[in-house]
């Protein structure tokens, strides 16, 4: 049997503990992905469809 199933944990560990280097890199990556995602909303095809995107996107 490998690792415990998800519900068996009762430890005092903290979620998503990584080294500082990994955390900084993750934040930069997230910022880049968010910026790229926002640029995606400037695409002509997204602008043309924005009403149907909004009305059915479930945001």
């Amino acid at each position, binding site marked *: 049997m490998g690792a415990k199933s*998800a519900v068996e944990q009762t430890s005092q560990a903290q979620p998503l503990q990584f080294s500082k280097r990994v955390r900084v890199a993750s934040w930069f990556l997230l910022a880049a992905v968010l910026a790229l995602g926002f640029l995606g909303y400037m695409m002509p095809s997204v602008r043309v469809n924005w009403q149907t995107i909004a009305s059915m996107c479930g945001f």
Partner: protein
Amino acid sequence: MATQIEQENMNRTIIVGTLIVLMAMGTRATFGLFMQPMGLHHGWSREIFSMAFAIQNLVWGFAAIAAGMMADRYGSGRTIALSALLYALGLVGTRLATDTFSLYMTAGVLVGLGQAGTTFAVILPVVARVVPPASRSTAMGIASAGGSLGQFLVVPTGQLLIDTFQWSGAYWFLSVFLAMAIPMAWYMRGRPDQTVGAGPQLSMKQAISQAIHHPTFHFLFLSYFVCGFHTAFITLHLPAFVTDGGLNASTGAIAIGLIGLFNVFGSYGAGRLGGIYSKKNLLSIIYTLRAVGMLWLMAMPLTPFVIYVFAAWMGVFWLGTVPLTQGLIGQIYGYKFAATLSGIVFLGHQLGSFTGVWLGGKVQAVTGNYDMVWWLGIALALIAAALCWPIKEQPIAQSPLAQPA
């Protein structure tokens, strides 16, 4: 001190849970992209797609209760895997649908069933159970932010897929994308342990009965109803509101991008703050600040700047209600039946969505504008804020009001 294997297991569960919600919520958000190309191909009108989407939302709401029960009784991994399979089959079926009935059964029923077991009501309790109590709210905030991130990122990605592979090809990509959640469900497996979290020793029936006889549960249900009312009304009717005001498509596209972007930070932030401050007070603040956002829109002349501020503001408070509401459910009623109870409360959200969409259209048809619904939205926000104040945050087993059925 946590062992390395416990830490790795915890990290993996949070990351996998976040990814599953991202995939499920993100794929759902692309539905509107297909309306034009599919409509042209099949000769289907906007009303047909709207009906399919309405069916999907109602099925999602009702099936969330069944998915929650299944997760609590038979295990979350099985529930998530089955739901992801139904979701992927629903997408394949939507691609192959040739008439409106098959569209309703696939994009409506199958996708709705799939969403029920791959989104917040089922995933968040699993993520919450795997971390220590002090970190639960943060963990749920991370998973909720995954859903927000999916909504934000998969929309432009879906449009790129349609531009590159046509709508039919894009559906295959999204089906495979969703099917990847099936093996990932292995890492979300397990059933809740009575010893984890608060709550007396009850059967599922007793736990549901106890909750629905507890005023706090009603407050959570009703405030979630208001949340659904706001989000559905705004997304469905904001385009007409903006267009009627003479603003162009670029403004609208930037506005929905801003809602999505700020929603990511809002979801995470609400979860994080919920681990430090009172969750019910934070919920009250969120609903009050939503009212402020809508007041801003009503009071200011309609310009791109006003719309952008409104979109960013509402984005911050968009899905921040999710980790707080579900966090309160787990905190008060325990985690043994958290998915079931979350599913019941989520039905309130979906009923609110339905009401917001329907009422917006009705009022616009009768009065020629949306003013009355905006004011109603403000009033409901303040009512929801007031409803959250009397919530008892103590675990029900320790509460003097607790009267197990």
